[in-house]
Structure formats: C-alpha cells, structure tokens
C-alpha cells in the first residue's frame, strides 16, 4: 500500500529538483486544488438541488399525484410567474414587518444590554423579567396583540420584535462583559476615559458576540412576522399561505414557501454583509475556522 503506484509519482529518488521547482509545483498543485474546491462549493449543492427537482417532477408525474397534494415543480414555477405580482406584493409587506420588528429589537435591545452591563441593580431588576418573558411562547401572545392592536401592521411588528430582541440583549450583554481584564487595565494605565474605553475597546471587543445575536434574531424576526400574519393578517406571505391553504391552492402554497426562503436567505446575507463591514478582521478569522471545519 505504501508504495502503490500513482500515490506518489513525483517523489522519485533519482529525480533532482531545485527548491524553486518544488515550490512552483506545490503552488500549482495548491491552485488546482483551490479552483477544484471553488467549483465543488457551487456545483455540489446546485447539482443536488437540480437532482431533487427532477426526481420530484418525474415522481409526481409517474405516480399521478394530484397537484393539491404535491404539485410538480414546473407548475410551481408557472404559478410564481402567473401570480408574480401577488407574491412580490406580499413579500414586500412581510419584509416591511420584519424590518420594523428587527430594527425595533436592535434599538431597544442594544441599549437595554448596555444598561444591564453597566448597572448591576438594573440588571437584577430587569433580567429576571426578561427571562421569564421569554418562557411565554410568542405564538400564544399573538392573539392578544390582535385584540389590542387590530389587524394592521403593528401586531406583526410587535411579534417579530418580541421574538427577535431577546438574543440581541443577551449576546450584547455577554459580549460587553467578556473581555480580558488586562485590556481594561491597559486602558486605565493609558489614562483612557470611561467613554473612550467603552467605544475604543469594550464595544469593538463585543461586536462578534453582538453580531452572533443579530444573525439569530433576523431569522427569528421572519418567524415572528409570519406568525403574526397567520393569526390575523390581511396581507403578507403568511396571510397568502393561509389563503392558499384554505382554497387548496397548493402550487401557490409552494410559491409562498419559496418566496419566504429566498427572503430569509437575503435578509441573513444582509446582516452578514453588515458584520463584514463592521468587523473585517474577525469575520476572516471566523471564515478560516469555518473552512477548517468543512475541509
């Protein structure tokens, strides 16, 4: 096995190579490896996707599955094209709800976390309330919000906010608190004031943790908005799903699911993009870590 032909054809003992030649060869090998990896990273998931869709199309037609159970992909695509305007309009409504709820959760969650970090007595007062409030399923609050705020935009924004803001508060508070004490000692010995220490050292140090919370929250905000629309909506993707469900319009149901998926991925990518802007160094480190995991 150790000398199996083909495994190490380049290490012939009688072949003499200068270090430059060896280097060039290794560089070349690495470049080929990397381009192969890049192609694979795109090709494999796309091929799997296409495979599943083809299998689905063929399977549904071959077994004559009725389209209200499982419509063939071609019919879903046709529905998306046919009802393009409807899907887009509802996607827009849901997006507005998500963004308002998400931004509210940042605007309220981050300062709340600052307060929890800075004043221990405030933390002792607020944290138990926060944690117990998280024990209540947000889906269960949605009907109450409907009673209080009607069928409009507000209850959906509120559900999205309620479900999204907790991870932001916790990850921000944890991020601010977890810092090497030496960094703070150093700041003091430099005569750096409390405000400057916060903005120059503690806050940037907390950013990776804050963004971890922001990424969890954006996916939760999507769930919150859709749940709000389920309970009592007159527009939005959640509402469209309910209507499609009621009229057994399964192709439209699938169209709604696809729209929700695309929307979720785009919103998540936006947060990741903001993270890369805010912490260019850390995200490269995180990417490297991710690459070492995925090979």
């Amino acid at each position: 096995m150790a000398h199996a032909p083909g495994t190490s054809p380049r290490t012939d003992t009688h072949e003499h190579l200068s270090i430059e030649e060896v280097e060039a060869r290794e560089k070349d090998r690495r470049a080929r490896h990397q381009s192969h990896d890049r192609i694979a990273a795109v090709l494999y998931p796309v091929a799997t996707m296409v495979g599943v869709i083809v299998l689905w199309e063929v399977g549904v037609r071959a077994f004559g599955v009725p389209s209200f159970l499982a419509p063939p992909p071609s019919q879903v695509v046709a529905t998306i094209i046919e009802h393009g305007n409807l899907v887009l309009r509802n996607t827009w409504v849901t997006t507005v709800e998500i963004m308002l709820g998400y931004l509210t959760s940042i605007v309220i969650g981050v300062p709340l976390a600052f307060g929890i970090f800075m004043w221990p007595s405030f933390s002792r007062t607020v944290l138990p309330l926060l944690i117990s409030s998280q024990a209540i399923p947000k889906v269960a609050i949605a009907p109450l919000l409907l009673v209080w705020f009607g069928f409009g935009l507000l209850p959906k924004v509120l559900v999205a906010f309620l479900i999204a803001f907790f991870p932001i508060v916790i990850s921000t508070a944890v991020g601010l608190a977890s810092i090497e004490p030496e960094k703070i000692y150093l700041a003091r010995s430099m005569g750096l004031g409390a405000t400057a220490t916060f903005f120059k050292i503690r806050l940037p140090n907390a950013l990776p943790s804050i963004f971890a919370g922001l990424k969890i929250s954006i996916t939760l905000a999507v769930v919150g908005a859709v749940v709000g629309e389920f309970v009592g909506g007159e527009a939005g993707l959640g509402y469209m799903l309910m209507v499609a469900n009621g009229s057994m319009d399964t192709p439209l149901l699938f169209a709604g699911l696809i729209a929700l998926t695309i929307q979720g991925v785009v919103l998540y990518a936006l947060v990741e993009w903001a993270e890369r802007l805010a912490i260019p160094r850390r995200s490269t480190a995180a990417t490297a870590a991710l690459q070492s995991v995925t090979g």
Partner: protein
Amino acid sequence: MASVAKDMRILPAETARSEPEESPYLEFRELSKIYATDDGPVRALDGISIGQRKREFLSILGPSGCGKSTLLMIAAGLLPASHGQVSVQGQRIGAPRTDVGIVFQNPVLLEWRTALGNIMLQAEARKLDRSAAERRAYELLDSVGLKGFEHKFPDQLSGGMRQRVSICRALIHNPPQLLMDEPFGALDALTRDQLVLDIQRIWNEARMTVLFITHSVPEAVFLSDRVIVMTPRPGRIDQVIDIDLPRPRTLAMRETPEFTGYNRQILDLLLARGVLRER
C-alpha cells in the same frame, strides 16, 4: 493613620543609609495584600518594603503564586493594597498610574487594530501629536525588528512579534517607568534571548526605571541591577541580590563564573526554601 505617617518619616531615612545620594523612585512600604475568596482569605503579599532607585533595573523573582504579579499591579495603581502604601517620587499612589508603560505576559493587543494601530492607541489615549507619534511608532517597530509588519494584524503575527508590538506600545509615550509582568513567559527560548537583548538595549537608551517580574533566574541575572527573591505564599522579600556585572551584558557572559555564580546563589536560595527540590 498617625502611626503610618510616622513610619513614612522613619523608613526613607533607613533607605537613605544604604543609598546616600538619592531617595528611591518607587517605594513599597509595609505592603500587604489579602484576597478575600470563597475559600477564605488568601495572603498574597506580606509586609513588602523596598525602594527602587531611578534608572534601576529591578527584577522580582519567585515561584508562581508568590504575589509577584500582584505587586506589579499595586505598583501600577491598578490594584489597591490591603495595607501599607506605594509611592513614586514621594507621592503616594491612590489611582491608576499613567506615567508607566505596562507589558503583560500576554500581548493584550486589540485584534481589530494593526500593529501600528495598537501602538497608536497609547498615543490617542494621551492625545499625543499624531504624526510625531506615528513616526516614533515606526522607529520603535524598526528597532525591535518589525519593519514591514506595521500594517499586519495581530492574527498575522507570531507570539514573539505580538509581544514586541506590546513592548513598543508601552514605550511610545517615553514613560519614566516600565512595568513588565513575565513578558517572555509564553515565548520560545530563542525569541526570549532576542527580546532580553532588546530590552537591555531599550533600557539603556531610554534611561528609564524598569520593574521586571520573572520566574527565570538567568533572565533576572542578565537584565538586573538588583534581583529580589520572594518566598512562596505569602510573598515576602527573601533576599535582595546585587548583580555586579559589567554592562552591556552579552550572551557569552552567561557562561562566565561570575554570572553562573549569581545563578547558583539564587538557585541555592530557592532550594533552601523548598521552591526547588533536587530529590
């Protein structure tokens, strides 16, 4: 408090006897530190009294847990003493000192700033003139062999390089005192040798007072004017050893009988105290 004030007058007189021409720059007087923990109080330092002359390279050597780092933190004004006091040029320390440069065992660099940016943090905090500080930062990086690495981030530098950056950061404001807490503890032997040489040169050029915490006997002998050997827990001053070797000291000097004699003297002390055991 009145008795403390009386002591203040007595003790400098005592130090003055051994150092007739100058009063100490940094002085610990009857310094004790107790840490209150859940497992009961821990005695870290017990009655430390010593003065450091201006320009002196003073090392504090002892086993782990003898309160060396605590002593440095108290000297920096970053930790309060439980009893006794620290003064700098006769002024009692009650707040974090800003007239120092500190080097910790870990480089403690900000990951989101370049080597230059990390050094410039010190300049920004002190509102030094930006362009002059930047020029000085480039010079400092060059002097420790980091020319060309100014715009690298900490995760692109080796451990030794990172520690060099942190040394530059401690020097950019030309502090009269440098406090170093086992700065080479986490580095490989060759890097340590190089940094020891660098520190000797920097100390010689910048003419500052260095308080150096270490658990390496040869490093302490190589660098110091005096070595304070501490006892294990609670930390007391065991012996103060004058290192009377010519300067600048060279690596070859480590093989001389004088140098090894000092090493032996300190090792014997550590053996006698049970810090080291030969069988």
